[in-house]
């Protein structure tokens, strides 16, 4: 088994840590990596596509298992919609496998590059979280290998405690080796999308709240620079599946070639170069211009049909868009706040970001509902994800601002999501998970990983030492 010392980064290029990289191809190789770690007294963490905005897939000076070598779809039953795949399989592989047969993954992230292992570890949600819950609710069964070498099978009934804790468990209890999921039946490769503007934060949140029951997906874009009466203005995209018969030619629209995002704009300009042209706008003034223009365009309320891939994988429209944020990269701050307190909390946070002169360049809102996974990030409310550019000059102030944000979110009864937030402290984590949950998780960890081999930089940061 080859191990290479490599400098690894988070998604967003704002953090890096070196590690011995091992690419296992089988369960046995995962186990021998654990044995090696024990011998070398190093920690281990699994890494999928490396799409986390934080330190979830880094362990400085330890051993990182690059799971992308285990990416086979082992079975697909197009009559039941059950798919079984190895943990390094990406959502891209999955939807491309199932869609031509009339199915779609029930929950997807904003990028299709993520792996199943990563999706389950963070228990990702999509724009339909209010309806379909997180991805874990669609897992029928998974197998995993624990650092002890034990191979386990979990379903919502069998080993239920591990089922509900390994999914959402940030990869700290064991390594997924196979995942079986139920896909969702679709009758067209297209969605009907309603796009309409919202004038302010109140409009934004009430549209999400009132709109959600009528749609399958709902998501809001927020212009985080707008202030005063327009604070929190933006645009809502709400989509629903087409019913049987609405699409005259579903076989055609469900073909992969009618789904994939074109690599060129107008068939000419390669999108892979686009991030160079975005970078000059990545400052307060440039983004103000872009946001204002975008808002004005969004004032036209309209309805259109869009492919599933086009609607969901917004982050894949511009390849390497994260490079446009410059040398020090970007961070994302996502908070989940109950519906009763969200408006007041985010009003305060948006105003604070203006006061600091550090507005978010991209804000995205969603509607959520609670779930029963142990390390859940969901609430009966909303989430707001904000992207911030990091520079050598703004680090200190941005850090101070986010600490104030944390307090506001905690006070509002909110939570955080560890595929995203990179600055949350152990103290903050304790206060929203609650000591009982953490104790329960640590007890499970002791059982699955008695030698404490699985440890990411994220784990050390949020659960202390």
């Amino acid at each position, binding site marked *: 088994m080859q191990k290479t010392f*490599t400098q690894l980064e988070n998604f967003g290029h704002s953090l890096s840590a070196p590690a011995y990289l091992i690419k296992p191809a089988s369960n046995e190789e995962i186990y021998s990596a654990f044995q090696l770690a024990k011998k*070398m007294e*190093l920690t281990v963490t699994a890494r999928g596509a490396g799409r986390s905005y934080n330190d979830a897939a880094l362990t400085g000076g330890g051993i990182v298992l690059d799971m992308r070598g285990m990416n086979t779809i082992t079975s697909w039953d197009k009559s039941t919609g059950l798919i079984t795949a190895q943990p390094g399989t990406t959502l891209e592989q999955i939807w491309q496998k199932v869609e031509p047969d009339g199915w779609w993954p029930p929950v997807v992230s904003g990028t299709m590059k993520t792996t199943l292992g990563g999706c389950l570890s963070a228990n990702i949600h999509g724009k339909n979280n209010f309806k379909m819950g997180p991805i874990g609710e669609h897992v029928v069964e998974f197998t995993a290998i624990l650092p002890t070498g034990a191979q386990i099978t979990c379903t919502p009934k069998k080993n239920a405690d591990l089922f509900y804790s390994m999914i959402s468990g940030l990869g700290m209890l064991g390594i997924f080796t196979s995942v079986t999921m139920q896909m969702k039946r679709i009758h067209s490769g297209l969605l009907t999308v309603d796009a309409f503007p919202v004038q302010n934060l109140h409009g934004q949140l009430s549209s999400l709240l009132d709109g959600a029951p009528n749609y399958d997906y709902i998501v809001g874009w927020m212009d985080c620079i707008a202030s005063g009466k327009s604070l929190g203005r933006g645009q809502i995209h709400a989509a629903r599946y087409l019913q049987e018969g609405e699409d005259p030619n579903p076989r055609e629209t469900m073909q992969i070639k009618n789904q994939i995002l074109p690599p060129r704009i107008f068939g000419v300009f390669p999108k892979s170069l686009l991030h160079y042209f975005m970078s000059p706008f990545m400052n307060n003034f440039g983004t103000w211009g872009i946001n204002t223009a975008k808002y004005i365009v969004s004032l036209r309320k309209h309805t259109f049909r869009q492919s599933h891939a086009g609607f969901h994988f917004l982050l894949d429209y511009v390849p390497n868009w994260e490079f446009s944020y410059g040398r020090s990269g970007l961070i994302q701050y996502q908070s989940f706040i109950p519906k009763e307190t969200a408006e007041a909390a985010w009003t305060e946070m948006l105003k604070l970001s203006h006061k600091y002169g550090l507005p978010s360049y991209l804000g995205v809102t969603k509607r959520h509902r609670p779930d029963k996974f142990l390390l859940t990030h969901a609430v009966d409310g909303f989430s707001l994800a904000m992207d911030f550019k990091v520079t050598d000059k703004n680090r200190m102030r941005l850090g101070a601002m986010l600490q104030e944000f944390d307090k506001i979110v905690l006070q509002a009864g909110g939570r955080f999501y560890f595929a995203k937030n990179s600055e949350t402290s152990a103290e903050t984590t304790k206060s929203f998970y609650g000591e009982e949950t953490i104790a329960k998780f640590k007890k499970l960890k002791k059982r699955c990983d008695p030698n404490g081999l699985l440890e990411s930089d994220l784990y050390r940061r949020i659960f202390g030492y």
Partner: protein
Amino acid sequence: MSDSPKPAQATPLNPRRRGIIIGASDGMGAALARKLAKEGFTLALLARRKDKLNELCAEINSSANETRALSYVHDVINYDEIPTLLNKIIADLGGLDLVVFMAGVNFPPGLTSYNFEGDRKMIEVNLIGAMAWLTPVSEMFQNAKAGQIVGISSVAGDRGRIGNPGYNTSKAALSTYLEALRNRLTRHGVNVLTVKPGFVKTEMLKAAQGATPFAVTPEKVADDIYKAMLKRKQLIYTASIWRWIMLLIQHIPSVIFRRMSF
């Protein structure tokens, strides 16, 4: 490792530069440790003397009000323990950006006598110690395509003189070794800085015979090293006047040089 709590996790808004100083307990090593810690580095400090090392760590950590220095008792001639220790240190620090090889001993034999034991010791520490450390470090930095190596050589390596053949040899070889590493590693994005101090007001200076012109404090050396690191320089003399002095000395013809008493 010392008992101090682990250093804080690096985050995008609180990035950490992490370094190892081999030979950190006093003199230039301690001064550089204080300087780098003040600049925000998290450091692993290595030396033979446990008490001095712990004292230095305690001082650095209390003035920074957080853990910025961890201590590891180590003698560089224990070559075999180095790869394991290096892995442990990187895991403790959470990463590695800088390695400073500072360890050095000096046993002047006297102008007319000879001392193989002393010479051997100087080669074992000053040269082979450096090779033992910088070999695994270079390999890692080469793979990571990042990193910085600082080697403390000496003006004494620029010419073989009558006073201390073994020391001259150890430092000349170290300078050449560092140059070779530089030529290997620059293309992989790794910077190798050779530092050639002249006289520095340390314990070692007391062993030097005769006059000690242009002697500088260890703090001055530390400042010079830090500045050179930031600029990713290849070679510095400290005090800088030694560059010109040594240029001159290097060009003294042997016919004269071998008759000189210096």
